[in-house]
């Protein structure tokens, strides 16, 4: 049962990203990406990570992609992207991607053939445990993250909040 759900979600996810590549309209690309990220949230749920799944749907499919859609509406690019003249670059990019696919596939095989720890510890899906880990082992990283978000907020306002006259 879980395998069927996984196959459906994986197909939706990869198909969404492929449709985003093939689509010439940026708004359609963003909406296909929302589909892909939402199904990825479902896959996170299958991996015993319910909190990561919720954050994925809320932050990625929700906040970040809405930000992208706002930006697309701001640019108001009514004319679609004209078909590209530079075929060479596309072919080269695809060739590089195939090489990278082979390389990453080999790396993934090696990672899986190494000895594995005890699979599925009982506390791996416990949100309280993750919270304790976040506020003990990773406390500094957590606090620095809050500073990073503040810096990003102020930086974005300083960059794009300026009006034309200034």
């Amino acid at each position: 049962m879980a395998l069927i759900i996984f196959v459906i979600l994986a197909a939706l996810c990869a198909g969404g990203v492929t449709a985003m590549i093939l689509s010439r309209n940026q708004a359609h690309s963003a909406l296909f990406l929302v589909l892909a990220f939402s199904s990825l949230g479902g896959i996170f749920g299958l991996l015993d990570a319910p909190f990561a799944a919720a954050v994925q749907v809320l932050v990625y499919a929700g906040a970040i992609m809405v930000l992208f859609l706002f930006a697309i509406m701001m640019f108001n690019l009514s004319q679609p992207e004209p078909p590209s003249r530079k075929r060479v670059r596309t072919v080269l990019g695809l060739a590089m991607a195939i090489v990278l696919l082979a390389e990453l596939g080999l790396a993934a095989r090696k990672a899986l053939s190494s000895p594995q720890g005890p699979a599925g510890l009982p506390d791996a899906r416990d949100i309280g445990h993750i919270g304790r880990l976040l506020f003990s082992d990773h406390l500094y990283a957590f606090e620095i993250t809050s500073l990073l978000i503040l810096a990003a907020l102020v930086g974005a306002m300083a960059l794009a909040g300026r009006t034309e006259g200034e």
Partner: protein
Amino acid sequence: MIPSAAFLILAVVLFVLGIVAFLVKRDLLTQFMAVEVMLNAGNLAFLALSKALGRPDGQVVVLFVITVAAAEAVVGLAVIVLVFRQRKTIRTDDLKELRG
């Protein structure tokens, strides 16, 4: 029971699709979306290995990655807005001042 190899293969496929999108697409916004796809592939690999090894640290890292991705999206979009205001275009074919 789904083998963790399946999750890792999906992560690899997503990352490569993100690379393809970044190299094939010709405007800054879609290329930026491709970067988000690659970040998500990394998240998926973290969670898959976190489950395979039975350690919850991977989930903590995923939270950090999502937070940093949100901050990065905000600043990146602000930069793209600035580029659009100055050049009236975000197509990378038209932005070649830095070409040697």
